[in-house]
């Protein structure tokens, strides 16, 4: 193994540069070694920097149109926003059942004046009729849990992008999507994202923000 002295110094410098550059890249790529998946990074970012919800025209299950920002800002309650599509047979079925139980919990705790649920469909096929059907199936009480669709493609895209919700078409006409509970505060800012498998934590977080003891 011949290893000339001049070359070894140059190589040591190159090695140092590569190691520093590589470590910096890994640090950046993993949000400071805290998140390996896009979803984890999204949740981290929202927790650190609350995100204003963009405007979008919502179509209610009752057929009436409302502006999302108004809907959030005028309501005065902490909102748990979820995204679904009505035909879903997998993740949002689980989510639907959880939302149903959360609705019962909110009513049982007498918190319906401080916390509520909003579910938005990202499926363009979900019109007022489909939403009404879904609401009936889930026994949603409009006072606590409202269902909406978005008619305008661009507005839907923008809202999903802002929330960081990615919808991928899957086999059998299904969609795969990153399901979660999105906590939106009284000012219409997205402040926290909690996993769809943790409905109790999501409800506790919303109640805490509403000033309820957990």
């Amino acid at each position: 193994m011949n290893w000339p002295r001049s070359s070894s110094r140059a190589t040591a410098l190159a090695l140092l540069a590569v190691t520093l550059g590589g470590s910096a890249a890994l640090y950046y790529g993993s949000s400071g070694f805290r998140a390996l998946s896009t979803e984890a990074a999204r949740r981290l970012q929202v927790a650190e920097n609350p995100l204003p919800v963009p405007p979008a025209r919502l179509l209610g299950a009752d057929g009436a149109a409302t502006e999302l920002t108004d809907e959030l800002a005028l309501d005065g309650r902490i909102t748990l926003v979820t995204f679904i599509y009505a035909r879903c047979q997998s993740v949002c079925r689980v989510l639907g059942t959880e939302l149903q139980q959360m609705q019962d919990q909110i009513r049982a705790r007498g918190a319906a004046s401080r916390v509520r649920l909003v579910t938005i469909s990202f499926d363009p096929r979900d019109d007022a009729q489909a939403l009404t059907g879904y609401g009936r199936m889930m026994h949603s009480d409009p006072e606590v849990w409202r269902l909406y669709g978005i008619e305008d493609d661009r507005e839907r895209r923008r809202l999903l992008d802002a929330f960081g919700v990615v919808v991928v078409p899957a086999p059998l006409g299904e969609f795969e999507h990153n399901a979660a509970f999105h906590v939106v505060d009284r000012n219409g800012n997205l402040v926290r994202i909690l996993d769809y498998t943790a409905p109790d934590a999501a409800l506790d977080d919303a109640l805490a923000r509403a000033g309820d003891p957990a």
Partner: protein
Amino acid sequence: MKRWSGPVLLVLLVATRSWLETTMLRHMLVQLPLLIVCGALLRPWLRLPASTARWDAQGLATLTAAAFITAYWMIPRALEQALVHPLAAGMKFASLLLLGALLPGALRRAHVVVQLFFVANICAMMAIAGMLYRELPQRLCNAYLLDDQGLTGSSLVGLALALGVAWCIANARHVADPADFTDGDQATGRLRE
């Protein structure tokens, strides 16, 4: 003819980019390795300066960079950023092409023991990442399906094993003939990709 294989492959990779990137398996196990191969084939056009060797004794700098670059593009978030951010996509192409261009020279300079260290390191890392991709119940990339992720994981484990075995076969003679062990120049191996 051979001179044109690099540019042709590069054009193909750019043209099929969106198709290759629609599934995680094609993205990680077809596009990324082919970019490294493409970098190696582009060497006649890149004309890396001869002084590269001075900065890269025993291929140490390049092989270290190889470990970092392969680790980086196995981070699910990094892979997904390359889908949506043009800058990340550019960095992906640039880093892997450059790695491919530097790797053959680095392997030629690296002693078999140095090669063993890095090959073992990279293969172990790839196999562990593959096992994680396979076993995790949640999706790591929002853009890819869970089944795709499992398949990618299995393939990463497979690639790690294949690379390790290929390196062993290419360097078997060093073990068979200990006298050959000291000959750093011969330890080229056939692990060009």
